[in-house]
């Protein structure tokens, strides 16, 4: 009966409902993206008609050491951020699932950074790590470590960017993993315990395999969103000193809005789109296959 009823609903009458959403996406994302593809084959700047230059923009970007540095920085930050987030998120999900007092309050606390803007987070973390007076600088000092010279040393700047990105986005990763962990039926754990499995075995044979889909989803989303990284870097170091902490989005912004080279910026944009897809797909496929090979 249900099938008959849905069959009666002519799919053309769905159009008025889905068209506003599709129109909005087409106008703001699809058409601009296609235009950027066209632009990436043109030489274009303010007050000049665009002329076709083939792959010259791509050649220029790919021959630019600053581009490679920004790509290297981005990849390093993304890899650290996403994996640390997954590890912490997983550990926290298991801790919460194991039962904690004041659970509601604790979850509210864990979610708090989700409400913080990128600007707000930058204000907080640069204050904490202020090389002279920051609280964390004093902590590092107390345990015999040098301060984080984030405004001077490129790797320190990127480390602070990674730290505050993890802080901002851990709530998202945690929620996905926690919800997935709660969805695992209790009976499976009881059965494993009756079979004499210890904690580690239960973790390896029950928890991890059943969480793999959620881990992959969280990882995919975080790869894609972490790769866009712009505001944190821009607000903390502006890509400096001497363009050493640029990430790809900052490189693109500078090409377009500081050097007014729209062709090169557009080429960067498409390289960004393609690499982000590649980064996600290669890794995910490999992981997916490995996980299922182990499950056999």
């Amino acid at each position: 009966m249900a099938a008959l009823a849905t069959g009666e609903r002519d799919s053309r009458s769905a159009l008025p409902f889905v068209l506003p959403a599709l129109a909005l996406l087409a106008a703001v994302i699809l058409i601009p993206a296609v235009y950027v593809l066209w632009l990436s084959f043109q030489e274009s700047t303010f007050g000049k008609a665009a002329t076709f230059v083939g792959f010259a923009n791509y050649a220029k970007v790919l021959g630019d050491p600053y581009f490679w540095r920004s790509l290297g920085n981005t990849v390093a930050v993304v890899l650290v951020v996403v994996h640390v987030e997954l590890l912490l998120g997983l550990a926290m999900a298991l801790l919460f699932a194991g039962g904690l007092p004041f659970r509601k309050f604790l979850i509210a606390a864990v979610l708090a950074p989700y409400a913080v803007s990128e600007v707000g987070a930058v204000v907080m973390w640069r204050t904490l790590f202020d090389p002279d007076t920051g609280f964390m600088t004093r902590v590092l000092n107390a345990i015999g470590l040098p301060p984080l010279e984030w405004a001077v040393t490129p790797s320190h700047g990127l480390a602070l960017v990674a730290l505050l990105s993890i802080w901002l986005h851990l709530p998202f990763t945690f929620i996905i993993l926690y919800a997935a962990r709660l969805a695992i039926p209790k009976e499976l754990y009881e059965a494993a315990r009756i079979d004499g499995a210890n904690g580690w075995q239960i973790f390896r044979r029950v928890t991890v395999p059943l969480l793999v889909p959620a881990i992959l989803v969280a990882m995919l989303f975080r790869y894609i969103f972490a790769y866009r990284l712009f505001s944190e870097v821009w607000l903390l170091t502006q890509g400096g000193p001497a363009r050493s902490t640029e990430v790809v989005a900052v490189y693109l912004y500078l090409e377009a809005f500081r050097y007014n080279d729209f062709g090169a910026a557009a080429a960067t944009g498409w390289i960004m789109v393609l690499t982000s897809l590649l980064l996600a797909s290669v890794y995910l496929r490999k992981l997916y296959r490995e996980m299922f090979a182990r499950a056999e």
Partner: protein
Amino acid sequence: MPSDHAVAAGAAASRRQNREAALPLRRIGAILGKALAVAFILFWSIGPIAMIAKAAFTPERDIFAVGSLTAWRPTIDNFIVLWTRWGDFFTGLTNSLIVTVGATILAVLVSTLAGFGYSRWRSRFLSGSVFAMIALRLLPPIVTTLPLFPIVNALGLSDTYTVLIILYAAFFVSLGTMVMRTFIDQIPRELDEAAMMDGATQRQIMTRVILPLSAQGMVAVAIFVIVYAWNEFLFAFIFTTKHAKTAPLVMSEMIGSLEGVEWGVLFAATLVQLLPILIFVVLCQRHLIEGLTAGATKG
């Protein structure tokens, strides 16, 4: 075979007994470990926010003084300076509010309609377009700013609420649609069919049957858009310069002022911008979690 099973169960039982014998020490260790972990989580999550909150109520000259916790004399001076000298910031807050409300209404409306469409009909075009929606979500926003910048200027939309409202809504339409589809899928089709028997049009089904029952999903979508639009930086940075500047943008100008940052005032601004949305997130905890899981795992 059954006897094997019994032996295994017996072995497990005796192992359990051994474990229980060694329990007190181990349990104390476990509780201690848990307490440490919880302390770390609290410190990590709320520490930076608490630090800002305290500093906002500290006189400018004492903010960076060491060991100032015991001698702390709370003051609202920073907020007074913020109010008298940074009118821009409060205009920014108003702008943020207008843009957030506009983007939320637009995104929820469009996502709910589309969620209904994708939940109730199947066709090649619909499957294709839903895939396109998910794929478009992968495009980095900064890529689309390139062509939008001249178009927005040409249309006279630069530095207006409209451009931010449209952009914010557009970047949440695909997630919003997935969340709404998940929620509307849970509304029994029999209700639609009963209404159709009574001669209702699809539009009437949408407004009379679906809308009243999908409030929960709409709340989940609204929360995402509200948090995003209230805090967004990149688009506000590129597309607004004066009239439509949002609060985060004004804050970034406070950081960037080369004259030397007035930290106390900046902390006060950070706290004022954060507090309403933080309270909102805490109050909407349950819906936020539902929305995240519905959108992420099904989308």
